[in-house]
């Protein structure tokens, strides 16, 4: 049977939609499995074949609530990811401003060099950073984590902000210079309002990245300044692998940031696709 162009288009559209659904489900499945497992008993969790239907129990959550101080870990995660983002932004905004509006011949190289530090394996600088924190008495403090978080994210947020700032027409800044703004006022009154959408998306992206950061939070913190990621890690090692409890604590660690991402997804997508759609 011959199809009209319109029917063919419709079919293509449906195939694409179905494919998107399949991929989305594949990606979501581990999260779903984690949530399901968190409501199983330990025995059900390791059952073969895996159980899809069972009588849910909240005993894992009760146990976690009894044994750990979930709220403190969650609060540490909030403070360090937001704090690291804030500190990073405070450094990145003026730097990206300088690079975008007063570029030198080496600006691109500097940006690339900064970005290249992201390719350095973190474990390579673990010892010096650990020792520095130790000497400064900053081990297991949120301050250490905030500073490190700000610095590890700096190259990425600077690159994104740089691209957003470059979209601001140069004439607008020149007009403000003729109007007599100071550099500070220029950033606060002109650049920030004009790049607000980009700055918000960049901040959100940074918060998500920092929330999920594992290496430094595990290395540098324990009971006092530990984040939710460190809490999850602490469940996996000393007690062997108890899948149901591990799933429950992981669910608790992910839940806030998933909700956060859900609420802010519009801004977040804009941040992730920067430069792609102008």
């Amino acid at each position, binding site marked *: 049977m011959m199809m009209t162009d319109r029917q063919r288009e419709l079919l293509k559209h449906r195939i694409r939609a179905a494919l998107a659904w399949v991929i989305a489900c594949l990606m979501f499945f581990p999260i779903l499995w984690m949530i399901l497992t968190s409501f199983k008993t330990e025995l059900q969790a390791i059952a073969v074949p895996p159980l899809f239907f069972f009588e849910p129990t909240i005993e894992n959550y009760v146990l976690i609530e009894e044994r750990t101080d979930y709220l403190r870990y969650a609060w540490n995660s909030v403070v360090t990811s937001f704090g690291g983002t804030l500190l990073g932004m405070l450094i990145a905004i003026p730097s990206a401003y300088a690079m975008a509006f007063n570029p030198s011949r080496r600006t691109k190289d500097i940006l690339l060099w900064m970005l290249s530090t992201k390719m350095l394996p973190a474990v390579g600088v673990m010892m010096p950073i650990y020792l520095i924190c130790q000497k400064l008495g900053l081990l297991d403090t949120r301050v250490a984590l905030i500073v490190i978080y700000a610095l590890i994210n700096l190259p990425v947020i600077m690159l994104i902000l740089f691209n957003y700032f470059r979209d601001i027409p140069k004439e607008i800044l*020149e007009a403000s210079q*003729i109007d007599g703004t100071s550099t500070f006022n220029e950033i606060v009154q002109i650049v920030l309002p004009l790049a607000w959408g980009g700055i918000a998306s960049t901040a959100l992206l940074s918060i998500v990245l920092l929330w999920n950061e594992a290496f430094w939070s595990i290395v540098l913190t324990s009971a006092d300044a530990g984040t939710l990621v460190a809490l999850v890690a602490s469940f996996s090692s000393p007690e062997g692998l108890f899948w149901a409890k591990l799933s429950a604590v992981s669910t608790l660690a992910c839940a806030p940031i998933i909700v956060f991402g859900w609420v802010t997804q519009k801004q977040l997508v804009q941040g992730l696709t920067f430069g792609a759609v102008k």
Partner: protein
Amino acid sequence: MANLTLENIFKSYADIEVIHDVTLDIADGELVVFVGPSGCGKSTLLRMIAGLEDITKGKIWIDGRVVNEVAPSKRGVAMVFQTYALYPHMSVYRNMAFGLKQAKTPAKEIDQRVRAAADVLHLTDFLQRSPRALSGGQRQRVAIGRAIVREPEVFLFDEPLSNLDAALRVQTRLEIARLHERLATTMVYVTHDQVEAMTLADRIVVLRDGKIEQQGSPMDLYERPDNSFVAQFIGSPKMNFFLPTVLAKNAPSKFKDFNPEGRVVGIRPEHLRICDGESNLVSAVLERVEQLGEYALVHLLTEDGGEFNVKMDDIPKEPKGTVLHFQAKVEHIHLFDKESGKRIPGP
């Protein structure tokens, strides 16, 4: 109110020199137009006056003071940009008040000055709107208003009409002329459009490749261009050039001591008149007629294949391919050196 002097100005980007030794005096209250093809350095020169570009060498004086090291806002200049460069996140009112606020002008005075400027520019009803909600012409008026409220010594216009459509361009041009008359402030206006230059300027400065080719009143430049570049740049449609060899045999008698060697003859399209085959200066084949309503632009081909145009009130009745004869008054015939393009004192 101030005069403006450029003294031996040079500008280089890295190793490339783009402005070569420009010296210019602009009198208090004068409207000077910088005109030239793109890349001639006219905008760079304007931006150097504004303080947006460093001066590589030379001095800029505004009101008797060297401003090379003075911040843009302290030079007493206001600039209107081609792209308007309004602050998109501020209302029209705040756009106009922004500069005064930065200068910590009392709120009452700001309000007075903004409202006065809005009144002049017919923007009073739009003060609370955002620039996004305005048409191109209105946006440009806001940009002009933002310049006016600062009560500058010198107004700088960087191709302010280029983004407007033809009808608005004529209207805004008129408004700028009126504004100049009313404020009598020194103005420097950059454009690549010779019509804007001719209609607005007290004095036109023609630039090419970072050098001043000629300066003078619009009619000066039109009637006595210093070289073939200025001759072609000023006037529309542009001046025709002929090699003396295509001129009719009796044509040289029109010139005193005419030596056709190494010369080019320039005649504007509006100065060629149709005539008979006896008194002709140049003859050519009718190739195409463009009817523009008020006049017809006739395209012709000389025997050496050169093209030229004639502005005619009436469409020639002859069919394509007919040979037509033209003459021009002696005072309308310009002579240039073929090599250097320099004007040769007239016939």
